[in-house]
């Protein structure tokens, strides 16, 4: 039942409303609202009960295994939440003076900038992008600003591997570039020969994830970097998969010029049903002048904001204030809790979990498109055999997994692999949980063989059965409307 269906005209939640104010009759009538908006009129108990019960209809990390590939659904420490919600942080206005009312939060942000530089091997950092995609935007915009600043205005293309996240090409277009796709070779790496053929004076840069979304580490990355750099282009690193290499390899050492990080992935800030995230960017020295503002600096005496006035070449501002500071505080707390040793452990255990899970699923007879490669923090599995033999698709497997109390992996991405799952267990899951996933996958394949209907009509145990997406798109219903009064 929707909250609106529990509403009754005239119900009023007295504990949450200020006393009635004098009428605002200095505001001219033609600027004033006439009818009231369709907000629900419910009691505090009704609201609390409604949203508490709604919450129970979600799968989440706190309640289920959630091996969503490329999303790094690892444990979001409750301590990070508690510290970020201290009254002094929550109550601080973005324009509160830095000197008298900001040194606490700015110390955290400054140190986070330093840590992100260190883990990526880059020279400078701006925390301000509000999500991964905005970090990507900032990265490509800086590449463009760099070419522009050199007067090199011939560069019109961004190269993107065909396995890339959809945000990569979309971002390139937002920055005014044309996108050229680079194919993948049979081993899962970028096809270097194809790359060689397409680079040229029109190449602004390349956007790469390494390890790629195919769950493998591109072994020829140094060669790729050399090719692109020699053609005058720059290299952008999509940090979505940074969890796989934290403490093992630094993007800076691979030759990247700019990196964005997803703190809601690598630094375990809450995924929040789809946000908020934060997408800090770190760059090599040559891109430093172009970083988005504001940033935090320390002048030896105190922390202060770096703004456009002292960074005239900055690509500019990306939000009204300084991005998602509350998210960054959580990332800071997490990073400090891990520390040196903890951070070095992340990639190791994430990779161990992925390789173990892959090995066990392989032993159970599931097919891997790149069977000879190591898994990184994630791996791709294809159900094309099951689809063909039993008529049961990856989507059906995904829905049936829900009945086994496990969130489904990312399905049908990367686009190159048919009927695929992209599976990322993360380092915070136990071996028992991975074993339970293998058992569920094996059980579902048995069901697919013996009783495919139970799989193709799944899920059966959730608040709703399988939903009709086509109807949703065709007969758009995006807002509730009151029943017309008879």
């Amino acid at each position, binding site marked *: 039942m929707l909250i609106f269906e529990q509403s009754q005209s005239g119900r009023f939640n007295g504990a949450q409303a200020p006393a009635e104010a004098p009428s605002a009759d200095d505001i001219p009538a033609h600027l004033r609202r006439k009818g009231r908006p369709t907000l629900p009129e419910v009691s505090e108990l009704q609201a609390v009960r409604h949203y508490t019960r*709604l919450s129970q*209809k*979600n799968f989440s990390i706190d309640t289920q295994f959630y091996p969503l590939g490329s999303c790094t659904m690892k444990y979001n420490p409750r301590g990070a939440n508690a510290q970020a919600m201290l009254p002094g942080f929550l109550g*601080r206005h973005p324009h509160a*003076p830095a*000197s008298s009312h900001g040194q606490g939060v700015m110390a955290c942000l400054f140190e986070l900038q330093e*840590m992100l530089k260190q883990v990526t091997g880059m020279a400078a950092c701006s925390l301000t992008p509000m999500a991964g995609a905005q970090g990507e935007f900032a990265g490509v915009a800086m590449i463009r600003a760099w070419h522009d600043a050199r007067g090199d205005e011939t560069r019109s293309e961004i190269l993107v591997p065909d396995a890339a996240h959809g945000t990569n090409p979309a971002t390139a277009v937002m920055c005014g570039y044309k996108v050229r796709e680079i194919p993948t070779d049979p081993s899962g790496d970028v096809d270097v020969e194809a790359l060689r053929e397409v680079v040229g004076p029109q190449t602004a840069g390349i956007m790469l994830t390494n390890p790629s979304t195919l769950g493998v580490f591109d072994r020829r990355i140094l060669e790729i970097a050399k090719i692109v750099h020699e053609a005058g282009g720059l290299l952008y690193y999509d940090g979505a998969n940074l969890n796989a290499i934290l403490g093992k390899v630094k993007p800076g050492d691979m030759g990247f010029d700019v990196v964005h990080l997803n703190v809601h992935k690598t630094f375990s800030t809450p995924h929040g049903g789809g946000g908020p995230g934060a997408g800090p960017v770190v760059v090599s020295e040559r891109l430093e002048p172009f970083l988005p503002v504001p940033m935090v600096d320390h002048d030896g005496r105190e922390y202060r904001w770096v703004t456009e006035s002292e960074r005239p070449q900055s690509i500019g501002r990306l939000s009204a204030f300084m991005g998602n500071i509350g998210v960054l505080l959580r990332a800071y707390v997490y990073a400090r809790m891990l*520390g040196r040793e*903890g951070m070095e452990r992340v990639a190791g255990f994430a990779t161990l979990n992925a390789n173990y899970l892959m090995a066990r699923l392989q032993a159970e007879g599931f097919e891997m498109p790149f069977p000879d490669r190591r898994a990184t923090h994630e791996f791709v599995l294809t159900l094309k055999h099951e689809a063909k033999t039993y008529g049961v698709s990856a989507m059906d497997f995904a829905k049936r997994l829900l009945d086994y109390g496990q969130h489904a992996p990312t399905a049908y991405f990367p686009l190159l692999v048919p009927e695929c799952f992209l599976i990322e267990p993360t380092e915070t899951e136990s071996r028992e949980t991975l074993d339970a996933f293998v058992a569920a996958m094996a059980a579902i394949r048995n069901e697919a063989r013996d009783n495919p209907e139970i799989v193709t009509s799944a899920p059966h145990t959730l608040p709703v059965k*399988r939903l009709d997406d086509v109807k949703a798109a065709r007969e758009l219903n995006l807002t509730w409307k009151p029943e017309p009064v008879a």
Partner: protein
Amino acid sequence: MPFIPHTEADVKAMLETVGVDTIEALFDEIPAELRSDGLNELSAGLNEMEIGRLMQERAAEDGLPACFIGAGAYDHHVPAAVWEIVTRGEFYSAYTPYQAEASQGTLQLVYEYQTMIASLNGLDVSNASLYDGASALAEAVLMAVRANRKDKSRRILIPATVHPAYRQTVHTLVRNQGIELVEVPYEPESGITAVESLEPLLEEGMAAVVIPQPNFFGRLEEVDALTDWAHAHGALAIAVVNPVALALLKPPGEWGAKGADIACGEGQPLGAPLASGGPYFGFMACKQAYVRQMPGRVVGKTLDSEGRPGFTLTLQAREQHIRRSKATSNICTNQGLLAAAATIHMALLGPRGLERVAGACHANTGALVERLTRVEGVQRVFEGPVFHETVLRLPVPVDTVIRALGAQDVLAGYPLAEDYPELENCILVCATEKHGEADIEEYGRHLERILDRNRGPACTKLRPPEGTI
């Protein structure tokens, strides 16, 4: 190990299953010359107790001053229930609801959110939220360029009364797509945008006119006239509004004869804490006709295989993960938790509660301005109705006053001269429902004292304000 559950026995058995001897061996495809020698510059890890203590000290440093700054972020009361529910693990630690059947909590909540936002704006539809108000305006500009079928121009008229940081953000985000932002000056007496100042900018056509309400100075624009003018000249009207103000003010969908086409704004006043500027959320609503041009996630109602209602992400064909380089935007994150907070916040307040909040803000701002302008030399700069905020001219440099009041734990307001050089010595002050009589009087008294001191003979560097000494 913090957050890693593996025992030594687990590691041993798992490596055996994989068929390698060490975890390091799993990285053997990485060229050896790339392997880093570790993160030596990082310090050792802290346990939760240790980091907790550090963070408590830092939070205490930032204090809990009385806040009279607005300028795009507003210090409202947020019911305790809001964040107690939002931080429940099932909301906090879930991801984008790709598996709809396992995400009905988030999905239904977003559907309710969309309904509330659309209704608040008097428009047909809403998306599931964007990053913040400023970037939402940038997306609205891009959307208007896509959506306007009458005028294929890429020019956008944007008044100088729009939040300066919003204008900067829009510039950053749209400049590379050949979109031209044309600034519209404001009337120096009234602080609003006159239709007459739009006329000279007409020449080359335009995709949209941006209309803020209230504007950055807190002043109420003549939204009907501006909207009608935009429509009369083939442009779309993009409203930038404060959602709390909408409880009192005419919603964008009712502006002028046909209503604004797109409305957007900063959602922070609906349940998000100030938090140094984020995470907040941008909202966006529009007319049904433009829904397929709208960026961001959208949730639709549908039926399950047994005919029961349910909710799912829809219109995904617009999005980057399907459409890649042809997507409406590169956005894939929304501000899910903040939209959830706003939904619960609005449900707890209801239409009457929100109306009272807006009324209290309005009354308190009136009282604040009245009190401060009783201080000698302090003057209102613009005449006419306001919401939430007002520009005052001080008889001394603003920075001095802000610093002196800051030392008393009173945040005096937002200094305007950097963004508007013509508004030297001007400050934008704000009151919400949280700032009652006593707080206002305290501000007034401190200001009196500070101005008296700065008027004194010892402060020779200051220009003597008119009428004193």
